[in-house]
């Protein structure tokens, strides 16, 4: 155990050095009380190592004084009585200074340890404060505690242990509280979302309903002899608004389905053209005022999609084009293959979508600033949810008019052709 012996070895060495120095000194200057010199060694030991090494140095010093300096030389006996007194006094003074020096040293050590404890706690608390997630915090606490207090760690005092544990407990508590607050905020947001949805939906449903009821009762009041043109107009209004109501209700039902998580796409190998044609056929009446141009290359690969989700997504986009583009302007549907994806564009010649709203149009509650044609929000939100369920994506391409771009992955394996 070198470390434990070290203080004594160094103390002995110090006494030896002082002894040699004293011996050299006494060659030139006669010193009656050599022992005073040895006090230096004792003090050095006390300051460096504490009480016991310094006592050891004192005993060695007395022995060295008796052996080397006081007659008879090279003998531990001391002849002259005043030299005996001298050594005795030296012993007492050495013992006292040892104690004093050792206490000063112990206090300095304690102060240093306290400072280290405070610094370590501070570092720990800084580390905990830097944690951004609950898991990270928990990991930091357990790592630090097992490092500082674990079985392999050097022993620590009780107070430090308590402070450390207290700090850890406090941090975990704070994290729990934070989580609770976040949860409460989320719940509040959910409520706001539901309310917004309800507002949006009831607006969407009530407007056409009001138009239908109003037109129907207006027809009644017109009676048999009413202006035939007015009658036809009211009849057309009832039909149009009922159709709008039907499509809005369908959207609401879809949204409920998406939110309830009940959307399991049935992916199968299909012709994109079939889906495009079905969506066009469904929206035939809505698109009545627009010439529709379809350009689908005949060698388009077959895609793995859910027919109905994809058809619905596309129908919603066509519906939007019909609603927002002025009558008579064309709606274009085109597709191409790019980097292993089929890119399908639906473009109208309407006012387009402002650059700032490119993403917001997919928000279920968003309505364009103009908002002259309501009900845009749900349609595109549903469209995006459906396309993503199919493994594709949909985004607005900035430019004149509105271009909705679908990207649909091309399946790796080509379908096996049946025998002719």
């Amino acid at each position, binding site marked *: 155990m070198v470390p434990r012996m070290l203080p004594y070895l160094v103390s002995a060495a110090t006494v030896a050095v002082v002894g040699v120095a004293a011996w050299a000194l006494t060659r030139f200057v006669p010193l009656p009380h050599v022992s005073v010199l040895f006090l230096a060694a004792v003090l050095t030991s006390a300051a460096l190592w504490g009480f016991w090494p310094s006592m050891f140095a004192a005993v060695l010093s007395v022995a060295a004084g008796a052996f080397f300096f006081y007659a008879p030389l090279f003998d531990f006996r001391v002849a002259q009585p005043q030299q005996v007194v001298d050594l005795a006094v030296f012993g007492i003074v050495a013992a006292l200074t040892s104690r004093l020096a050792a206490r000063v040293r112990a206090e300095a050590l304690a102060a240093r340890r306290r400072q280290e404890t405070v610094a370590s706690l501070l570092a720990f608390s800084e580390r905990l404060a830097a944690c951004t997630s609950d898991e990270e915090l928990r990991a930091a606490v357990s790592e630090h505690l097992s490092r500082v207090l674990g079985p392999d760690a050097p022993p620590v005092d009780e107070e430090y242990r308590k402070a450390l544990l207290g700090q850890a407990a406090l941090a975990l508590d704070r994290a729990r509280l934070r989580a609770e607050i976040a949860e409460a905020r989320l719940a509040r947001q959910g409520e706001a979302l539901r309310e917004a949805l309800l507002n949006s939906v009831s607006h969407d449903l009530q407007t056409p309903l009001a138009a239908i009821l109003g037109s129907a009762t207006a027809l009644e009041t017109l009676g048999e002899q009413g202006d035939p043109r007015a009658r036809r107009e009211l009849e057309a209004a009832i039909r149009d608004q009922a159709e709008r109501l039907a499509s809005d209700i369908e959207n609401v039902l879809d949204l409920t389905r998406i939110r309830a998580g009940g959307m399991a796409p049935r992916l199968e190998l299909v*012709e994109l053209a079939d889906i495009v044609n079905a969506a066009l056929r469904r929206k035939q009446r809505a698109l009545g005022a627009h010439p529709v141009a379809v350009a689908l290359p005949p060698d388009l690969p077959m895609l793995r999609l859910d027919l*109905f989700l994809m058809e619905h997504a596309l129908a919603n986009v066509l519906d939007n084009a019909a609603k927002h583009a002025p009558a008579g302007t064309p709606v274009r549907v085109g597709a191409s293959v790019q980097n292993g994806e089929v890119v399908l564009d639906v473009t109208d010649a309407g006012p387009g979508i402002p650059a700032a709203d490119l993403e917001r149009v997919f928000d279920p509650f968003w309505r364009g600033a103009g908002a002259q044609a309501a009900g845009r929000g749900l349609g595109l939100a549903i469209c995006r949810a459906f396309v993503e369920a199919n493994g594709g994506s949909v985004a607005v391409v900035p430019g004149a008019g509105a271009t909705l771009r679908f990207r649909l992955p091309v399946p790796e394996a080509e379908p096996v052709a049946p025998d*002719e």
Partner: protein
Amino acid sequence: MSEGARILVVDDEPQIRRFLRLGLEGHGYSVIEAATAEAATRAAVAHPPELVVLDLGLPDHEGFEVLSALREWSRAPVIVLSVRSREGEKVRAFDLGADDYVVKPFGMPELLARVKAALRRRTAAAEPLFSVGGLEVDLARRLVRVEGAEVRLSPKQYRLLQVLVANAGKVVTHRQLLGEVWGAAHRDDVQYLRVFMRKLRGRLEADPARPRYLLTELGVGYRLRTPDQLA
């Protein structure tokens, strides 16, 4: 024409029955109403209808029972009414022998067109020559022409076309087509059919991506248009 034909309307919702009766009677058809499966079966036996409009949404899926009971003895065209969210229902109805379907909500003009077409198909005698637009199929000589030019088809392609011609104007389900062309073992290989239909369209259609003759009924099957459906 079939004006005056007797139509059985089966729907459990009185509002729907009312507008169907008013709409159909307004065009000269005579209408019998039934609100339940049992009443429908009884009415069909008492006054055999020339066409049936059947709501698949009857309670307890009884719409299918009406359909299969009717098909035991009647070949009267059946137009089923279904809602969009239940696509599987449609396929089952076709497999049970339905002739056409209309998705609720629908407009009267749409239903009237379907009714007219179904009644006309019923009275049309089987002819050896089928033609729609520029497509001609000579069943007797097994010849197919597009815009006057003869088109060579593989035996399977011709068989597929033949089945569609035999059911021209009607939706033929994937299962029916697969069973007829490839045999019962391949009834569920819809993928086959899609790949095959692409080839057939390539031979017969000017723009296979926008077919004029061979229409897809999404998730259900295919329909070969008749001349009056081409409009």
